[in-house]
């Protein structure tokens, strides 16, 4: 599967997790692709730089440098949208008013703590809204290909990349499987490829269990 296809597949699966009426913040990378799969759901997209209600991508005529998302890409707005300052935007995020944040991740440990803002032995010079979203959103969904290009698993027992916050994410959607984190434990919700859970466990070097269905 081409890398781009994989990214879209992850985005499509994440879109299924979103519910009507939710306020959602889509981070940089795979998360921005989620927008294309939301379709019939009434989901309200929030941008850290001060917008609630991102619409479909703009036409050339609609391009406006004063209307961008947090990735600095041009956007449009939906009916019912509103603009506000960065302070008010992060009050919304940090104060727990955003229902779901979808964040690209570099690593996640088996308790669900993530690293997504810096790599080891490199100057740490950018964080943006990453840490505010991790700590603030009611639900955090991680998005990533399960393995790096050199085949290393992004799920690790102990983070080797700088941590983004002490809060555990709720769900991790990868190209291989959907994982959930509850009470400090990782479980498999769904396997998206033709592979038994034992084989996935082995590939990751972690003993994986199915998540008990909740009713």
């Amino acid at each position: 599967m081409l890398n781009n296809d994989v990214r879209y597949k992850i985005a499509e699966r994440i879109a299924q997790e979103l519910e009507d009426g939710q306020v959602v913040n889509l981070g940089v990378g795979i998360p921005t692709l989620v927008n294309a799969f939301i379709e019939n759901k009434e989901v309200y997209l929030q941008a850290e730089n001060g917008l609630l209600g991102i619409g479909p991508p703009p036409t050339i005529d609609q391009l406006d440098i004063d209307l961008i998302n947090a990735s600095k890409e041009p956007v449009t707005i939906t009916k019912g949208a509103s603009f506000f300052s960065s302070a008010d935007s992060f009050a919304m995020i940090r104060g727990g008013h955003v229902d779901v944040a979808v964040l690209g991740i570099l690593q996640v440990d088996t308790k669900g703590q993530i690293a997504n803002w810096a790599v080891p032995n490199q100057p740490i010079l950018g964080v943006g809204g990453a840490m505010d979203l991790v700590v603030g959103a009611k639900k955090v969904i991680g998005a990533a290909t399960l393995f790096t290009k050199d085949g290393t698993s992004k799920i690790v027992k102990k983070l080797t990349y700088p941590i983004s916050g002490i809060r555990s994410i709720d769900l991790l959607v990868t190209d291989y499987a959907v994982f959930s984190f509850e009470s400090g434990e990782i479980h498999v919700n769904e396997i998206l490829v033709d592979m038994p859970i034992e084989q996935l466990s082995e590939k990751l070097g972690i003993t994986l269990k199915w998540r008990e269905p909740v009713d």
Partner: protein
Amino acid sequence: MKQKVLENVRDLISLFKDGQKILVGGFGISGTPLTIIDLIAESGVKGLHIVSNNLGDYGMGLHQLFIRGQIEKAIGSFFTINREAVVAWSKGELLIDLLPQGTLAEAIRCGGAGIGGFYTKTAVGTELAKGKEERVIDGERYIFEKAIKGDIAIIRAKKADKLGNLIYHMTARNFNPMMATAANIVIAEVDEIVDVGEMDPEQIVTPHVYVDYIIQTAYKKEGDQYVKQ
């Protein structure tokens, strides 16, 4: 009565001095006061401490001041896109204070509001919390952050009336309203200047009390760019 609207941006050049702390509005280039930044470049002042989300973009805005070696320290949230800044930092030629974007926004708001500092949940347990006081409030961990104030704030708005009331344009609002409150001198660069009474009192985002000087921008918007006229 003090006249806030200046015909010539150069009348402001003497306000800028070596070593000042300057708050600069904008996110990327959007909502950045490019005309005033050009003036600072022209002024040649050095050793500036710049508080801004990032150091410009696409070779525009604050990037110019960086290239000219006018910046001693940058306080912001996202310098990764400023590759030369990363190199300069590695060589010890640029000081950087990295803050989460929400912490930066809140610290500036507090600076303008007579709040000395605050406790935020963001960054607890991370490298950005190192050396910062931690406190548990109602069972949750928070870190202390001090308010940020500047000598000068330069901001960009859509429209000013002649008194200095401001409204912004869409996401170009970003850091500008907080920065307008948190400096001794506030200069607003705007697309349009209207008579007093032409703005809806419910819609004014920055009341005139915060604004000292108003200049017309030299940059025109063309789609997703600001272009110098």
